[in-house]
Structure formats: structure tokens, C-alpha cells
């Protein structure tokens, strides 16, 4: 990292600027490690599934806070480093391109070869008079995974700078909304089933696209494991004042 930044400075023609830039970015990237834990305080919250007021203590390693009434998982202790998330997002974006360029499966029949990408399936659906279904497949399988990855970048950036702009908070809201409409896992199961179906009929070959898409799916799973929503909201919402109802919640002094 340091060397790369150093080179960047040389390219810019000024060694001092490069070093200063390197130091700046390094403090940005390391300050989470120091300041991450102190931000946690015991706090109160409402259960989203049954509206019960619950006070949550500071969680120890591997502890999970669940609602005592409806058992909804409220918060979990997770060793959450924003850098890991950034790494996963970049990996995902890199995998996304070949996953959509290269064919998913290749069929061979009587000397003829035919392969299809994900986009090919969408076009075939559109061509046979099902534009709505084609749009749905396009949105759920191609668009939402891409949007989710792209939307996380400004959120991560805001979290690294430790001040959540309004833009980043709105973006993270939309990200969370999109989560349930991404269907990479289901698509993978679909590929698996069609491959098994076809294997008896002709020779089927898995294309590069399927491996990249599997990687993309694994990255999504990794993101959902790594991402600690509550912590990220805390970081993004630093400037937002605590709520005062009849009862003051969200922050305990």
C-alpha cells in the first residue's frame, strides 16, 4: 500500500506530496482499528418485529442480541472492518464484468455449438413475447447485484471519512431496500438444475461466466456476513441528533 502510494507521489512529480497523501490515507484506513470499539455503548432500541423496548448491553465476542419476546436478532457482535467490506466490493465488481461477458453454459448438438450468457437468456425471453418476465430476470439477476456493489462504494467512503453525508445515508437506505431483490443465489441454483437436466440430453460445458457468477454470489454472501448494519448506521449517523420522544432513546448519557 505504502509503496503504491509512494509511486503515485512520484508520478505526481513531488515526493513530499506523495508521502503526505500516503500518511493521510493510512490514518484514514487505520483509525477504524483504534476508534471502532469505543463507539459502542449500551443503548436502547425498539424491536422491529414486535415493537418492544429493549436495552442492549455492550456485546462481547460472538454474542448476539435477540428480542426476548419474538426472538428477532437485533444486533450481533461482529469484528467489522470497513476495509474488508471495501475489498469484497472491489472483488465483486471485478467478477461482475466477466460474469456477464462470458457464456454461462455451452451446449453441443450434432456438431453445432451454442452458448448463452445471462443477457442471452433475457433477450430470448423478450423475443418470445415476454418482455415483462425478461425485464424481471434482467433486474433481479444483472441490475440489482451491480447496483448493490456500486452503491456501497460511496457508503464505504463516507464511513472511512467518518462523517456520513446525507447522500451516503440515503444511498445506504436504498441499498438495504435492494438487498432482498437480488437473486444471485437462486440463479445459481437454476443454472445447476438446468445443467443436470441437460447433461442427459447432450454434452454441456460450464462457461467462464458461471464461475465468475459463482464468485459474485460468494462475494454477496461475504458482504452480508461482514456488513454490520447497526455499526455502519452509527458511523454514518454521527451528526444526527438523538431522538426525543416522551422517552429519550438511541443514546444514553
Amino acid at each position: 500500500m505504502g509503496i503504491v502510494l509512494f509511486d503515485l507521489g512520484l508520478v505526481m512529480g513531488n515526493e513530499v506530496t506523495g508521502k503526505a497523501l500516503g500518511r493521510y490515507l493510512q490514518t484514514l484506513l487505520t483509525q477504524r482499528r483504534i476508534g471502532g470499539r469505543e463507539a459502542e455503548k449500551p443503548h436502547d432500541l425498539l424491536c422491529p418485529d414486535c415493537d418492544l423496548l429493549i436495552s442492549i448491553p455492550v456485546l462481547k465476542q460472538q454474542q448476539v442480541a435477540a428480542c426476548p419476546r419474538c426472538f428477532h436478532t437485533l444486533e450481533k457482535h461482529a469484528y467489522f472492518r470497513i476495509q474488508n467490506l471495501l475489498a469484497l466490493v472491489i472483488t465483486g465488481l471485478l467478477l461482475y464484468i466477466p460474469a456477464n461477458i462470458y457464456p454461462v453454459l455451452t451446449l453441443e448438438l450434432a456438431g453445432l455449438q451454442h452458448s448463452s450468457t445471462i443477457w442471452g437468456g433475457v433477450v430470448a425471453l423478450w423475443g418470445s413475447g415476454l418482455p415483462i418476465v425478461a425485464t424481471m430476470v434482467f433486474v433481479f439477476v444483472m441490475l440489482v447485484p451491480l447496483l448493490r456493489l456500486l452503491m456501497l462504494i460511496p457508503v464505504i467512503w463516507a464511513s472511512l471519512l467518518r462523517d456520513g453525508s446525507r447522500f451516503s445515508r440515503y444511498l445506504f437506505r436504498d441499498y438495504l431496500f435492494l438487498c432482498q431483490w437480488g437473486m444471485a443465489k437462486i440463479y445459481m441454483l437454476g443454472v445447476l438444475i438446468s445443467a443436470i437436466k441437460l447433461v442427459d440430453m447432450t454434452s454441456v460445458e460450464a462457461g467462464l461466466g458461471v464461475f465468475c457468477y459463482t464468485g459474485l454470489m460468494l462475494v454477496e454472501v461475504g458482504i452480508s456476513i461482514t456488513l454490520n448494519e447497526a455499526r455502519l448506521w452509527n458511523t454514518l449517523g454521527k451528526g444526527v441528533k438523538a431522538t426525543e420522544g416522551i422517552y429519550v432513546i438511541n443514546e444514553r448519557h
Partner: protein
Amino acid sequence: MNGIDLGLKLCLVCYQACPEYQRRCQRCGGRVRIRRNNSIARCWALTLAAALLYIPANILPMMTISWLGQGGEPDTIISGVVKLIENDMAMIAVLVFIASIAIPLLKLLGMAVLLLSIQPGYEMGLGIRQKMRLYRVISWIGRWSMLDIFIISLLAGLIQFGQLGQVEPGAGAWAFAAVVTLTMLASNSFDPRLLWDNQCLSQRLEE
């Protein structure tokens, strides 16, 4: 103590508690309400629409596979599963059966049971924990029925050999995709907190 008694409403996106007079969450900017807007009416509407579309989804053909001169007759969901069993692919048949017949039915019936059980006098002997579990299963499992649509999309893109082999998706796919999306929207617009409100109310009445 419930949030509603404290004059607080919870933002369902970022879990920030907001005071009652506030229209939008100050943290994420989303609309906050004490309970989801018109939850029961919307949920009924979406569930009924999905139930109606479930009929064409099962009657209309999903796809037509012609392969090396054989086949060629359109397949509905059920006849597709039957064909898979005939071709000794029992495991896949079970998977497809679960994803495209069992799960949509379970979702439709489950939603109806949940919505009925909210009304007083229709408890149907379900405990609140069981209802909660039912709701969570329905909302988690919802997406997995899209499986069949994705398989059709893959096969349609892949098998394009003209005379030798061709897959033609049918109108049933449209209805089925609509069923899946509508039931997902229905379980999204259901507010499980209403179940607990009911229980708190009935407890208070008993006292």
C-alpha cells in the same frame, strides 16, 4: 413497554426511533410510520391478486421444448414435474416441485392464515409465536420460487438449434413471475407488530 406507548415510531430501514410527529426518519430520510401504511388492506389485495394469477400460472404452458424431433407439446408446471419423474430425475423433480408448487401455495395459504388470524374471532388456534414463525418462513422463502423463471430464461437462451432443438417460453411464465413478485410484495407490506398489538390488547381486556 412498547414503542407505540412511548410515542416513538421505528424506522424500519435503519432502526432509528423517531418521535411521533416526525414524518421522515432524520437519519436515512425514509418515511416512518407507527405501523406500516394500510398494512392489512394492502396485504389482502396483493395476496388475492396473486391467488387469482396462480390459476393461469398453472393452466397456461410454461415452456415448449422440442428436442430432436420429439416433444413439442407445451408443458405446464405440473406436467413438467411429471415429465421429470418419468425421465428418472426424481431429485430435480422434487426441487422443482418444492420451488414452483409447494412454496407459492404455502405462501398464499400462509398469508391468508396470517391475515385472518389478525381479525378477532379467527385465531384458528395458532399461538403468537407460531404466527411469527410462519411470517418469517414466508418472507424468507419467497424469493426462491423465482427458480423456475430463471431455468426457463437459461434454457430459452441456450437451446436455439432451430429444427434440432428449440425452447419456446409460454405465457404461464408471465403469470408465475407475477405470482412470485406479488407474494413477495405482500409479505413485505405485512406488519408483524400488528400481531403483538392484538395480543397486548386482548391481554389488557382480560385483566
